[in-house]
């Protein structure tokens, strides 16, 4: 059996609150073969009577031995996400397989110096965060911009870490678009992501960035459409949808 098809036991090592309702789970999965930033896993839960449910979650941190991180946004009436975002605690066991998805990936060590543009909607920031974090370890990191669309300031994931990295001399550029409520003093009124939000010197079409777009289907359709409209070649745009 090939590695991606193999189910491994994963023990919950740590739980971190990202927002009032979303959480990051740190898992320890012995024998994990490693992964690239952008890939996802299948998580399998088994009830006492043997009933099982499987869902996909993006890895939000680069490979680090047996350690895996996923962030979960609970969806109303969901079967799995409210359990992962609410009930699970350190020491609990579930199963994991992967890594899955070899297209929506970025390897900062691949030697390509092109700028990288990451655009995430809501929980779609998870695989992009793995890319931001993977860049930190790279010898000559490519210029990277993360553009995150969230409803309100309290909906940002990884906020403290992103703000800290953005303040470093050669750190990533981190921009946030607020769709419903902006922080006090913000110049941009709340609203959906539009062309001016995407355009920033260094990551325009003429700068030939590699683009990664992740989020709900409508968000991915809208953003990838805008990128094509302003001249980014379609083969430079990779998308991932959580739907």
């Amino acid at each position, binding site marked *: 059996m090939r590695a991606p098809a193999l189910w491994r036991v994963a023990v919950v090592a740590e739980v971190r609150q990202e927002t009032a309702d979303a959480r990051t789970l740190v898992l320890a999965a012995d024998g994990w073969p490693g992964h690239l930033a952008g890939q996802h896993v299948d998580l399998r839960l088994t009830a006492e009577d043997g009933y099982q449910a499987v869902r*996909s979650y993006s890895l939000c941190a680069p490979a680090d031995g047996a350690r895996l991180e996923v962030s979960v946004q609970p969806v109303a009436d969901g079967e799995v996400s409210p359990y992962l975002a609410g009930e699970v605690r350190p020491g609990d066991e579930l199963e994991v397989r992967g890594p899955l998805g070899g297209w929506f990936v970025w390897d900062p060590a691949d030697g390509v110096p092109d700028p990288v543009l990451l655009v995430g909607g809501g929980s779609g920031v998870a695989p992009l965060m793995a890319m931001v974090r993977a860049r930190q370890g790279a010898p000559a990191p490519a210029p990277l911009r993360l553009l995150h669309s969230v409803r309100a300031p309290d909906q940002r994931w990884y906020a403290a870490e992103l703000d800290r990295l953005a303040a470093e001399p050669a750190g990533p550029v981190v921009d946030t678009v607020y769709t419903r409520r902006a922080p006090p003093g913000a110049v941009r009124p709340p609203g959906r992501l539009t062309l001016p939000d995407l355009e920033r010197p260094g990551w325009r079409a003429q700068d030939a960035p590699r683009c990664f777009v992740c989020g709900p289907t409508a968000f991915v359709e809208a953003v990838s459409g805008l990128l094509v409209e302003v001249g980014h070649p379609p083969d430079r745009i990779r998308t991932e949808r959580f*739907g």
Partner: protein
Amino acid sequence: MAVISRGFHGRRGPGGDRLPPGQYVTEDFPVLSAGPTPHIPHDRWSFTLTTAAGEKRTWDWDALMSLPSETPQADIHCVTRWSKYDTRWRGVPVDAFLEGVDPDGTYVLVTSYGGYSTDLPLADVTGGRAWIVHEYDGAPLPPEHGGPARMLVPHLYFWKSAKWVNGMRLTRTDEPGFWEQLGYHAYGDPWREQRVQGD
């Protein structure tokens, strides 16, 4: 040796015999694709069949429209775990494109605008089991769902039903397509849960 996840009870849906293992039923029509949606006008669309010997036959949009169409209705199953019941399409059975063609080759590689490809056994796209469809639910197929025309192979996971189709090549050996090269299962039977290589 599945481990028990403490406190997980799950919610057994009314799946029944109609829902393949590990799937949930959705009323919407989610979208899965690897990049931006290509927009191909009808007057720039064409479909080319290439035989294993390298012979080519091409249909433009009018030629596609002049072929006798069928209205398949089917349940579809996406590897990302949604299934949708009773989807209604209009299109041309793949058999119609193969009429009079030397059936040399046991596999096909279906190709798309935008660079996507997927491989299937020839037997799975013939015998009235696959179509090139151009209408969904009584209206022209929208680009995000693969319009102007896509494959419909409802008995396999839906990534085998290539969107934005522009060609089909008969091959003597199985040549892995886009997702198949990235670790997805070569055949993709939802009833045997053939999601990734090794399943």
